[in-house]
């Protein structure tokens, strides 16, 4: 991928021990916030459930042991919920799993237990500055809310959307999506194959042109004919001149033919040569209307 695209895209490259480089999409704050809220809901839900169960078994009020278990459980879930899950669930908490996120080191390697615990302990640093509700009115000083400004500011200041805890541990959060394999774009128009045979056999499609052709073939069905002509013209016009084809050949059709020859069909010389169609058939979706366009 070119550097220009790398600067725009939120992807990182990971080089595996197999010496293969693959891309990951880095997760931004708006993908991670729902995961955080889900985890918070799970924590609170589990806590309430445990309190109910303990109360059920020990009677209302509970013994000292019950209170101690609840308080220590609260402490552990407050500080180590994320760390324990990320260490034992391969970099995921329940919320992250639901949102398709995973924590990795900045090299794309799996994290270790220390990193998992530390990046979660340091979430407290992201919560600063704390906002007291006392600025709004006369409330007890216990109501103090985290604003997460430090975390957001730090995330905005680096390209990998790392919050403070991530920077300290050298970790980042990536999006791990279930991939879907699409079929190669089909070209239904029968004229494509005919035109493909008219193309000079010695013309080699370069790699970048092959990329362009397949991108175009995948996306052309979303465009209107006029838009296709406009887009395909950039490549189609010089190619028509080069191949010596009639100037009124549809650019869209030309690119499809080239795509067909490169990606789908055998080389023209390998297929039995059929009768060459007349040129004006190929110009049905012609560029003649182009003159009337402003």
């Amino acid at each position, binding site marked *: 991928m070119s550097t220009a695209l790398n600067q725009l895209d939120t992807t990182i490259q990971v080089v595996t021990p197999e010496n*293969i480089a693959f891309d990951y999409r880095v997760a931004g704050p708006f993908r991670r916030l729902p995961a955080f809220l889900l985890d918070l809901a799970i924590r609170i839900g589990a806590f309430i459930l445990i309190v109910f169960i303990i109360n059920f078994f020990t009677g209302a009020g509970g013994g000292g042991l019950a209170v101690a278990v609840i*308080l*220590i459980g609260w402490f552990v879930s407050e500080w180590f919920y994320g760390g324990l899950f990320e260490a034992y669930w391969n970099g995921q908490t329940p919320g992250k799993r639901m949102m398709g996120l995973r924590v990795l080191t900045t090299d794309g390697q799996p994290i270790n237990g220390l990193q998992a615990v530390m990046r979660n302990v340091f979430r407290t640093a992201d919560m600063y500055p704390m906002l007291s509700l006392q600025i709004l009115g006369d409330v007890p000083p216990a109501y103090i809310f985290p604003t997460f400004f430090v975390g957001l500011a730090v995330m905005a200041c680096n390209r990998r959307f790392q919050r403070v805890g991530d920077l300290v541990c050298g970790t980042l959060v990536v999006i791990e999506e279930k991939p879907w394999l699409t079929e190669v774009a089909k070209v239904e128009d029968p004229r494509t194959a005919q035109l493909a045979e008219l193309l000079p056999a010695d013309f080699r499609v370069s790699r970048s042109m092959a990329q362009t052709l397949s991108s175009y073939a995948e996306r052309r069905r979303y465009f209107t004919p006029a838009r296709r002509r406009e887009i395909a013209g950039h490549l189609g016009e010089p190619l028509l001149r080069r191949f010596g084809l009639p100037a009124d050949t549809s650019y869209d059709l030309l690119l499809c033919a080239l795509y067909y020859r490169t990606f789908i069909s055998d080389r023209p010389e390998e297929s039995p040569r059929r009768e060459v169609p007349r040129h004006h058939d190929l110009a049905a979706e012609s560029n003649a209307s182009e003159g009337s366009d402003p």
Partner: protein
Amino acid sequence: MKVVELLESRRRHWKTLEQMIDRVQSRRRNRLPPDDLVKFADLYRAACADLALADAYQLPPSTTLYLHRLVGRAHNQLYRSHKFDFRLWGKILLHDVPQSIFRDRCVQLAFCLFWGVFIASAVLAHQQALWPDYAQQMLTEPVISQLESNFSEPLSGRDPNADLAMAGFYIRHNTSIGLKCFVGGLLVIPGLFITVFNAAHLGAAFGYMARPEVTEGLNFFQFVTAHGPFELTAIVLSAGAGLRLGVAWLAPGRWGRMASLRRTAREAMPLMGAAMCMFFLAALIEAFVSPSGLPYWFKALVAIFSSGALLFYFVVLGLPGGPSRATG
């Protein structure tokens, strides 16, 4: 070979790999039978090779994207997070941590800061001549009356149930303060603030209670003696570990700021682990020994014993080339 044929021949393998990833992910133990494991590795390597050659094969962008994601998912199932190595913890806590504390300027600085503010605050609260209303301003009236009512009765022990509950409370409350102190140290100002505030607050409470006219003072000192050494040391240690993080990125020396921070954090976290152990011990003493009706000499003995343990930990284990070097 044309792309379509190539994709046709590969699709089967990719789909199999995808199914295997799903299976590994849904398994509880994340284990595969040995045969499948070999197959998984083969398929993963094949997918990696396909991705590496995607450009040469002129694969369409959507297929390349698919391969990126497929290889990414397979990579994350193959290379898994390292869990905790509990065998190392003993060595880290008993050897590495005391060794690093011994020569840690930040812990020394935190020690001086905490105790300096503590003593100054205690003196101000005790000597009414210098700043007559200091104790009232620092502690506020409700806290003072709360303190006085808490310690109005001589300590005679409470019911064991309450002791257990309070143990849970102390573990949660005190360790949280320590962790906040540690994490706040990274941002320097919150860390210093929490440290100084705690020192001033505790110092004022001690100073106020030491006033001759405050009759509750006797019970107060009976209460705090036993767990004091562990708890106050743990607070200082958390503050020092946190301060070290702040210094790491403010004055990185020859390192890059981020590299220095990452390196220091790896060393500072075990310090915090040691502090958490101390908080835990302090909480147990505070819950079971401090409020009990045990005679004062016993509580003092606990304090002396815990101070001795701390001295042994910091000085004997911490001495460079000390006896721990041979055993570690």
